[in-house]
């Protein structure tokens, strides 16, 4: 059953064919587009006997079980009929579009969009999983957006496409919420399960919410009142698109969903009133409006709305016979409406206008097209012997069977007849005003003539179907209709007969009233047109555009208020929000002190803490004198390093110490360019606000820290402590965690470091900075290129420092040390050379490309990890053994050390990349005096 998946995938994959053929001659392009559509129909053939026998084929393909998402597909009678419609009419539309599109229209693009739409629509009707269905549902909205907006130069097309996307896309969001609720109630998103749990769903408290949400999706997609307004605006699309999407397929997706979910959702009062009344309103509004449209396609659009309302109404009736009628009308409407759209397209194509007031008397010029249009229009009007008549009779019969309170019981049949009267009237107008009734007036193309032979072929086929189904329903439509209705009902089929003649009965009388009344209405149309002109007509397009504009305006005002380009404002709001959110948690605590006994304070620690706090305060108080502030900051950093040492974290102390050095060097370098002082700018009020925020943050952090420290805790570190020596081969657990247990994290972190280094390097390359010639006190810089003491000292220190970093590196696995710290020590020793000897002097003697070094480090670490693949182990599995290095004693050699080497190289590379480049920026541009 894998070929079900092919049916859905073929159009998507096949869209490459017309794309590839887009520059070839047009017949090639069309043939390329025909292939995928035809193949989907061929793939369907093996299933025909089973489907007509009432079987359901389900193709199970699990995917994300935890999320309830699968790629399962389902082919039953209902999806079978829809696949026939989608692929069959798709095939005809492809052929039709070949003649319809002008030479300047990009044909390849049109067919690509059309095939995407076809695939999406096939996905909707073949999905077994509701989430998968939703995915394709949204794809139909997107591809229809592309198709409606195909003529991108036309502003109406763009607006219409946008409106259709917003309305159907918005409904799609509601549908998603509804589907999620539905899946929650049924416990699965698989249709087989959902459809079988109808009672469970209907008695669930979430049922009304789910129903309303799903119906929102259905009503927007199927252009039901009051969401119908997008469909007439979508008529700006090329006519083949209207024939395909807006009559036969996409707008049917909504009613398809009604049919699909009928066993799960129908049968309640909420369902009955919502669906029936919305359908009824749509039926009336559509039929009445259609008559007064002067645009051929506009008339057909409102007629489509009206017929979709009729189908919706039928589903709402909670009667199994009504479902049969609804499915039947879906098929009939698709055939006659698609052919009418095509006929309208032919008229437009040959005369250059779609305005009914300018057309007339075309029978003399195109009798063949006129005959075809008459057949389809007769079906639309519900004339006996055409297919529309059969389903309309069933519809009349059903509204007469209504079992409800008195006013509605009479109102619905009367309204249905009234709509049918209008339906006959606009069908007559479509034929009489266009093909008869005088002569055409000032046509853009005169005289009009019949279209190319094969442009009429799709219309002939569809009109033929209308006639055949109308004359011989038992031989043509009976079996697929029964299969589809049975699949939709999810149970036994009611007994019905598809005969043309049921004797003299009320439905027949209603049909007669409709035909006679419609003819009378059309004859007397001048009076009604005058009446219609006086009616206020809200322009949905303008209202929609205005509403969109207002929303966009409000949104940009909102954005402009928050995003006011002030970092201070962003930070203040973010901090305030964080304070409120975290502070609330802190206040909700029963007691700040969690009950764990506190450790005593010793004198040395107390003095150190005092020193730290004083230095912090000094950093802030003197922050306007930047160099002084920086010196104070370095005191804070050193005290933090001591704090790590004090609380049993020697690795952290070493790291903090070395990072502190490079940070201070970095900040000093930046101070070379930046002003040396900070002026007083903020108002006292602003400073007060900032102090309040700062105190809040301080209280919060301090409070949280104390609340945490005074509470008992559990740790997962027992595992690391236990396994460090036997499995990681190292006694320094912190280092083993870094290079082994959590090596993947470290790999990510050194990558970030290397990327930051490269980013900084790139930014410095493009920077143009004015180099100040004097210091803050207006003294020129000292230009002692080789400060004797420093130069000599630094050259002695370099080998020693490198030796120490090697030592720190090797002992890292068992004692405090490791790649990070060793890398920082190396970097500091190198930076000292730069400071002492100058950038030019040093880089001449130390030719290392630091970008390459940083990248090499990441590569070494990554390759070490990947090496474990050769031993069929997961990424970053480490191996270890013992090795004896001369003069350094015995070391445990672990593959993790190669990883640590990568860390080392990255740290050296990135740090040097940052500092040496910033340093270079400041040298060679200063003219100062020599000492």
């Amino acid at each position, binding site marked *: 059953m894998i070929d079900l998946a092919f049916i859905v995938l073929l159009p998507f994959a096949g869209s490459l064919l017309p794309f590839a053929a887009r520059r070839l001659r047009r017949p090639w392009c069309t043939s390329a587009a025909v292939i995928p559509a035809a193949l989907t129909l061929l793939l369907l053939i093996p299933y025909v006997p089973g489907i007509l026998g009432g079987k359901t084929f389900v193709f199970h393909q699990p995917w994300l079980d935890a999320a309830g998402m699968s790629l399962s597909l389902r082919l039953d009678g209902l999806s079978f009929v829809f696949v026939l419609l989608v692929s069959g009419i798709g095939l005809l539309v492809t052929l039709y579009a070949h003649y319809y599109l002008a030479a300047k229209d990009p044909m390849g693009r049109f067919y690509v969009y059309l095939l995407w739409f076809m695939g999406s629509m096939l996905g909707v009707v073949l999905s077994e999983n509701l989430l998968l269905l939703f995915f394709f549902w949204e794809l139909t909205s997107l591809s229809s957006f592309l198709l409606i907006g195909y003529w991108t130069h036309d502003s109406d097309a763009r607006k219409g496409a946008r409106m259709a996307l917003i309305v159907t896309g918005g409904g799609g969001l509601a549908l998603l919420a509804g589907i999620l609720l539905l899946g929650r109630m049924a416990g699965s998103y698989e249709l087989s399960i959902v459809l079988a749990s109808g009672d469970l769903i209907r008695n669930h408290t979430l049922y009304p919410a789910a129903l309303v949400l799903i119906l929102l999706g259905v009503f927007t997609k199927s252009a039901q009142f009051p969401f119908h307004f997008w469909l007439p605006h979508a008529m700006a699309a090329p006519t083949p698109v209207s024939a395909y999407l807006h009559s036969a397929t996409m707008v049917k997706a909504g009613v398809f969903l009604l049919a699909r979910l009928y066993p799960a959702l129908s049968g309640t009062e909420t369902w009955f009133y919502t669906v029936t009344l919305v359908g009824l309103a749509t039926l009336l509004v559509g039929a009445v409006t259609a008559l007064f449209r002067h645009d051929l396609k506009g008339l057909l659009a409102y007629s489509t709305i009206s017929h979709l309302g009729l189908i919706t109404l039928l589903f709402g009736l909670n009667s199994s016979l009504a479902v049969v009628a609804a499915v039947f009308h879906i098929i009939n409407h698709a055939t006659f409406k698609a052919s009418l759209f095509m006929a309208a397209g032919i008229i437009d194509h040959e005369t250059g206008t779609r305005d009914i007031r300018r057309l007339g008397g075309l029978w003399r010029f195109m009798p063949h097209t006129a005959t075809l249009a008459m057949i389809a229009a007769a079906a639309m009007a519900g004339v006996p012997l055409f297919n529309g008549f059969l389903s309309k009779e069933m519809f009349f019969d059903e509204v007469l069977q209504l079992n409800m309170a008195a006013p509605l019981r009479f109102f619905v049949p009367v309204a249905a007849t009234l709509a049918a009267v209008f339906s006959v009237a606009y069908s007559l107008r479509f034929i009489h005003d266009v093909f008869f009734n005088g002569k055409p007036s000032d046509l853009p193309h005169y005289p009009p003539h019949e279209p190319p032979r094969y442009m009429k072929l799709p219309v002939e086929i569809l009109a033929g179907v209308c006639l055949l189904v109308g004359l011989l329903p038992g031989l043509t439509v009976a079996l697929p209709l029964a299969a589809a209705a049975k699949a939709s009902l999810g149970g036994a089929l009611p007994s019905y007969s598809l005969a043309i003649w049921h004797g003299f009965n009320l439905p027949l009388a209603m049909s007669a009233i409709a035909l006679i009344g419609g003819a009378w209405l059309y004859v007397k149309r001048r009076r009604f047109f005058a009446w219609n002109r006086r009616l206020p007509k809200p322009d949905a397009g303008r209202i929609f555009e205005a509403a969109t504009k207002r929303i966009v305006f409000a949104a940009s005002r909102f954005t402009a208020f928050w995003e006011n380009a002030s*970092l*201070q404002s962003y930070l203040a709001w973010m*901090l305030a929000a964080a304070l409120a959110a975290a502070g609330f948690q802190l206040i909700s605590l029963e007691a700040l002190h969690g009950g764990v006994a506190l*450790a005593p*304070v010793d004198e040395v*620690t*107390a003095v150190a*803490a005092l020193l*730290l*706090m004083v230095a*912090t*305060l000094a*950093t*802030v108080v003197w*922050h306007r004198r930047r160099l002084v502030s*920086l010196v104070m*900051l370095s005191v*804070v950093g050193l005290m933090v390093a001591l*704090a790590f040492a004090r*609380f*049993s*974290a020697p690795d*952290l102390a070493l*790291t903090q110490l070395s*990072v502190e050095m490079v*940070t201070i060097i*970095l*900040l000093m370098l*930046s*101070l070379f360019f*930046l*002003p040396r002082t*900070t002026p007083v*700018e*903020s108002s006292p009020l602003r400073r007060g606000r*900032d102090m309040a925020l*700062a*105190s809040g943050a*301080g*209280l919060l*952090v*301090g*409070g*949280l*820290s*104390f609340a945490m*420290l005074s509470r008992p805790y559990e740790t997962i*570190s027992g595992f*690391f*402590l236990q396994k460090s*020596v036997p499995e990681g081969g190292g006694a320094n*657990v912190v280092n083993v965690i*870094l290079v082994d247990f959590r090596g993947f994290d470290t790999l990510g972190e050194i990558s970030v*470091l290397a990327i*930051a280094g490269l*980013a900084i390097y790139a930014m410095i390359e493009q*920077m143009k900075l004015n180099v100040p010639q004097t210091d803050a006190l207006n003294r020129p810089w000292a230009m002692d290129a080789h400060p004797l003491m420093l130069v000599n000292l630094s050259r002695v220190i370099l080998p020693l420092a490198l030796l120490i970093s090697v030592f720190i590196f090797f002992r890292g696995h068992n004692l405090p040390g490791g790649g*990070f710290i060793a890398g920082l020590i190396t970097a500091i020793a190198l930076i000292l050379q730069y400071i002492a000897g100058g950038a030019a002097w040093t880089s001449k003697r130390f030719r290392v490309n630091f970008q390459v070094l940083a990248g090499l480090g990441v590569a070494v670490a990554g390759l070490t990890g990947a090496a474990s693949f050769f031993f069929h182990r997961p990424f970053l599995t480490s191996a270890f053994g013992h090795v004896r290095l001369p003069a350094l004693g015995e070391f445990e050699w672990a593959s993790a050390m190669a990883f640590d080497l990568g860390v080392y190289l990255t740290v050296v590379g990135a*740090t040097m990349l*940052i500092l040496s480049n910033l340093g270079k920026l400041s040298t060679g541009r200063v003219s100062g005096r020599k000492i």
Partner: protein
Amino acid sequence: MELLYSMVLGGLAAAGVYLLLRGRTFPVVVGLTLLSYAVNLFLFATGRLATGLPAVIGHSETYADPLPQALVLTAIVIGFALTALAVILALAALSASGHDGVDDEKEQP
């Protein structure tokens, strides 16, 4: 000890936040540094405060929690990269706009 530690943390955070809210780039970078000290110390303290028990196997019976230490170690190094990036951005802003304010020219008082 825990109370003293928390007070120090609070002081660091308050000082960091105050400087973070200044209108010039250099104090903001200094504030960022102070704040990262506070955050690192806080993360470190999630493993609780131990005295004389470094997580080196064989040195004692019990050990300080090594996991937060490993986390903080990389955080310190990444913190340096972050500070460096902030410094370079400050310099880039200086080179682009000619002043060292954190906000747009028109926002300057």
